[in-house]
């Protein structure tokens, strides 16, 4: 490991390698790609939330001049519903049915057919000529309704406790004996909560361009993983993976929502059928209607504590909407909800419930914010009931090294306590509040992830370096990779170029997601660079005619290990590179690995709100986020992740929600009606980085990007309670809801 004293680049806010391209408009996003002969693909979507497809007649559309291809699910490989086909954490049975309905449409917006034509306008006209005969079925949108005995059943093959059901899965963790635990408690608080689905809200709509020639396909698209794109395209079309080259375009935000495909396999089939390159791009409305929000939920959380503030038992049940097909992120609340605390008796339970909404996709720490919202609001009430400061209560119960989490692991060295202490000591926590202002705190946890990564590090003839990794860069990972490589080699980071390889040039690399890239990719890059350093030492040894063991690498130079090794002038990386051909050939190394040891991350947030009692608007006026990140390779982008995640959480708490009309159709499918935070809605968000290095990583990295969206929901709710004395048990805490609650309180006071 690099010794702390001479660290040069790790921890420095270097200028990102892609900065100039992004501020000049040169960076190429998926929608920017064009090709000669390119035609346009468009998707026909179901108007019904639930219907059987009796027949689809595409003949009129096919006959329209300018139309080059029409497709339906009949053009995809069929995956029988009773045999799982896993790819990563997804299942191709559901993926293929999600992007093109088979037999039934399951949500309004569900694709039923697609067309490619010479212009977008002709493609749109052709969609209108496709005749779909639907048998409209009863539908269910609400998670509680979906579990009632007489609820319309979405999937005949799904059974729960022996009966046809919309409950597609269950996850349960038990530690100790909760009943015995609650019996010891002096204070027991149990509450129910509700959250609505919220969208990831990346500003770049999904887009792709696919060309097929001589049976070989090239796919340019915006995704969080080119290997995922290749794999899913191969599964759905039956093409072998070596015939698909997936090229990652710059990605305009993903937050989990681009860890699956929507357009690429459709465009691929249209390109195969038409023989022309096919471009597809979604409108914002399509993004809202048919790509993944995260689950809405109902939940119940119960916490019991003794008078001295020791939590003795905790219980939580979460029912999460999966949308049309199974796959709600129940692991999030069930595993993460109580993870910040050392509690002897815990029982958590989660249900994956299908209903006639668009299928959910991952969203930043999937499910964990929903868990923390309920747990951290109840924690606030427990603190109040006991008369203990809410951070003090968290500190007294903080999970630490050796704590057994209910979901299984015994924590190694973790930094939760440090986040709470830092929050308690921060001036924000003691700053005076103005009228109608309130302060709330909350904590949160995310598992983080490792997995497969590949890297190639090449030394160029002039001594500069090219690093290729296989992970799309969403949040500045190229900058952190450059920092790490420069650090290890002991050279200026500007001499290092970092590229994202497509599927034909770099080995398999798993998705950018789960806060895994800087963690896992840094391991592959580190191992590759170490091998390069060994080669550089061997070459120097050869030039000097000494034993490679007698050479050390220091500050970007090879030096003899000591006096005994001989008296030679150090050789710089550039000097060795210049002689590479005569000393054994090009210098480079590539490593592929499956990273394990991604340790979890914790955060604690302090939020101040000010409520306008006339308008019902709660505004966040001060926000400070404390997070253990292990090691900040590039602090500015670590802070950026924390600020961005907190902002998304604030939006979730205050305004964002999917609203459905009485026909089961999404009613607010635009940025006009789905209100994400704009600049004037937010204050500066102070990010306080805490570094408790992950002992299992060469640079000490833990994931960063997921944790910051976990605490805000409860932090905001607790702050609003502090300001108004009113607790809100459902999100979002939007102006109409706050106004109604204020009016009700006034009414009660008047009576």
């Amino acid at each position, binding site marked *: 490991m690099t010794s702390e004293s001479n660290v040069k680049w790790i921890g420095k806010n270097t200028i990102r390698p892609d900065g100039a391209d*992004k*501020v000049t408009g040169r960076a190429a996003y998926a929608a*920017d790609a064009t090709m000669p002969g390119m035609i346009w693909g468009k998707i026909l979507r179901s108007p019904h939330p639930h219907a059987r497809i009796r027949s689809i007649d595409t003949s009129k559309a096919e006959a329209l001049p300018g139309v080059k291809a029409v497709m339906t699910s009949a053009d995809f490989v069929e995956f029988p519903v009773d045999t799982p086909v896993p790819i990563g954490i997804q299942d191709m049975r559901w993926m293929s049915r999600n992007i093109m309905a088979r037999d039934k449409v399951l949500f309004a917006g569900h694709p039923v057919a697609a067309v490619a034509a010479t212009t977008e306008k002709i493609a749109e006209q052709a969609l209108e000529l496709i005749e779909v005969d639907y048998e409209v079925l009863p539908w269910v949108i609400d998670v509680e309704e979906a579990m009632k005995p007489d609820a319309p059943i979405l999937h005949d093959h799904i059974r729960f406790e022996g009966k046809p059901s919309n409950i597609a899965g269950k996850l349960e963790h038990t530690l100790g004996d909760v009943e015995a635990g609650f019996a010891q408690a002096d204070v027991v608080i149990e509450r129910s909560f509700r959250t609505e689905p919220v969208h990831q809200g*990346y500003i770049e709509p999904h887009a792709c361009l696919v060309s097929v020639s001589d049976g070989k396909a090239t796919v340019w698209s915006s995704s969080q993983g080119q290997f995922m794109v290749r794999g899913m395209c191969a599964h759905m079309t039956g093409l072998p993976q070596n015939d698909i080259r997936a090229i990652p375009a710059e990605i305009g935000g993903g*937050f989990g929502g681009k860890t699956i495909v929507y357009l690429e396999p459709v465009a691929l089939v249209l390109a195969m059928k038409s023989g022309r390159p096919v471009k597809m791009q979604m409108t914002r409305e399509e993004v809202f209607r048919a790509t993944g929000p995260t689950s809405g939920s109902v939940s119940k959380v119960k916490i019991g504590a003794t008078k001295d503030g020791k939590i003795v038992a905790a219980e939580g049940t979460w029912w999460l909407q999966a949308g049309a097909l199974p796959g709600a992120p129940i692991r999030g609340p069930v595993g993460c909800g109580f993870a910040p605390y050392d509690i002897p008796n815990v029982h958590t339970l989660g249900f994956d419930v299908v209903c006639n909404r668009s299928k959910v996709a991952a969203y930043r720490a999937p499910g964990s914010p929903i868990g923390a919202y309920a747990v951290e609001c109840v924690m606030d009430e427990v603190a109040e009931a006991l008369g203990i400061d809410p951070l003090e209560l968290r500190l007294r119960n903080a999970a630490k090294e050796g704590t057994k989490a209910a979901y299984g692991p015994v924590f190694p060295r973790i930094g939760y306590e440090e986040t709470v202490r830092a929050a308690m000591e921060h001036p924000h926590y003691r700053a005076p509040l103005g009228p109608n202002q309130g302060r709330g705190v909350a904590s949160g946890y995310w598992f983080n992830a490792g997995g497969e990564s590949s890297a190639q590090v090449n030394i160029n003839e002039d001594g500069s370096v090219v690093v290729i990794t296989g992970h799309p860069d969403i949040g500045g990972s190229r900058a952190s990779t450059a920092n790490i490589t420069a650090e290890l080699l002991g050279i200026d980071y500007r001499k290092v170029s970092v590229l994202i390889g497509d599927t034909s040039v770099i080995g398999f690399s798993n998705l950018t997601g789960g806060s895994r890239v800087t963690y896992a990719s840094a391991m592959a890059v580190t191992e590759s660079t170490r091998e390069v350093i060994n080669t550089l030492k061997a070459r120097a040894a050869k030039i000097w005619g000494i034993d490679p063991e007698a050479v050390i690498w220091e500050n970007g130079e090879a030096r003899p290990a000591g006096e005994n090794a001989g008296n030679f002038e150090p050789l710089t990386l550039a000097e060795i590179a210049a002689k590479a051909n005569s000393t054994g050939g090009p210098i480079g190394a590539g490593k592929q690995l499956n990273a394990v040891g991604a340790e979890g991350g914790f955060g604690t947030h302090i939020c101040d709100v000010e409520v306008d009692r006339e308008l019902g608007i709660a505004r966040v006026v001060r926000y400070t986020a404390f997070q253990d990140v292990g090691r900040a390779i590039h602090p*500015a982008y670590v802070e950026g992740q924390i600020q961005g995640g907190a902002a998304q959480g604030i939006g979730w708490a205050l305004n964002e929600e999917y609203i459905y009309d009485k026909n089961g159709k999404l009613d607010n499918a*635009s940025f006009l009606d789905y209100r994400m935070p*704009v600049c004037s809605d937010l204050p500066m*968000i102070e990010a306080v980085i805490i570094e408790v290095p992950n002992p299992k990583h060469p640079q000490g990295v833990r994931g960063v990007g997921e944790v910051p969206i976990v605490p805000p929901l409860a932090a905001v709710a607790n702050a609003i309670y502090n300001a108004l004395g009113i607790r809100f048990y459902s999100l979002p805490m939007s102006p109409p809801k706050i106004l109604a609650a204020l009016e009700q309180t006034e009414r009660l006071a008047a009576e």
Partner: protein
Amino acid sequence: MPTVSMTVNGKSVSADVEPRTLLVQFLRENLGLTGTHVGCDTSQCGACVVHVDGRSTKACTMLAVQAEGKNVTTIEGLAKGDELHPMQEAFREHHGLQCGFCTPGMIMSAVELGMRNKEPTEEEVRHWLEGNICRCTGYHNIVKAIMAGARAMSA
């Protein structure tokens, strides 16, 4: 099809377009200036902001034919050769971007603010940016970048 002529990034351009062609489509599809992005269908996101006769304008709210005879600047026209505009430099320096998709629109909006106000306060910047959405950054570094960029513009 009507013919439309305008000056884009200092060059006169002219093309036959469908009357309903939006300025943003004209820039992206006819001229290949893909730095101007499209993020929404309802004129909320601001990813498409360009300057029309010096005023920042959402290029998705204007027809190409409405820009007849006007002087249009896109993100590609801001730098002088390799020398970044001070606002571009400020975004790069102050890490005012993550995915970068909102960045061209943010910068074009910010440049107009910088022209009007040499030292905008945090509040003025936040207010000015109401028509530009960023989902990645929480705006923190964007606000810092714009305050610094506006100062650099007047230096």
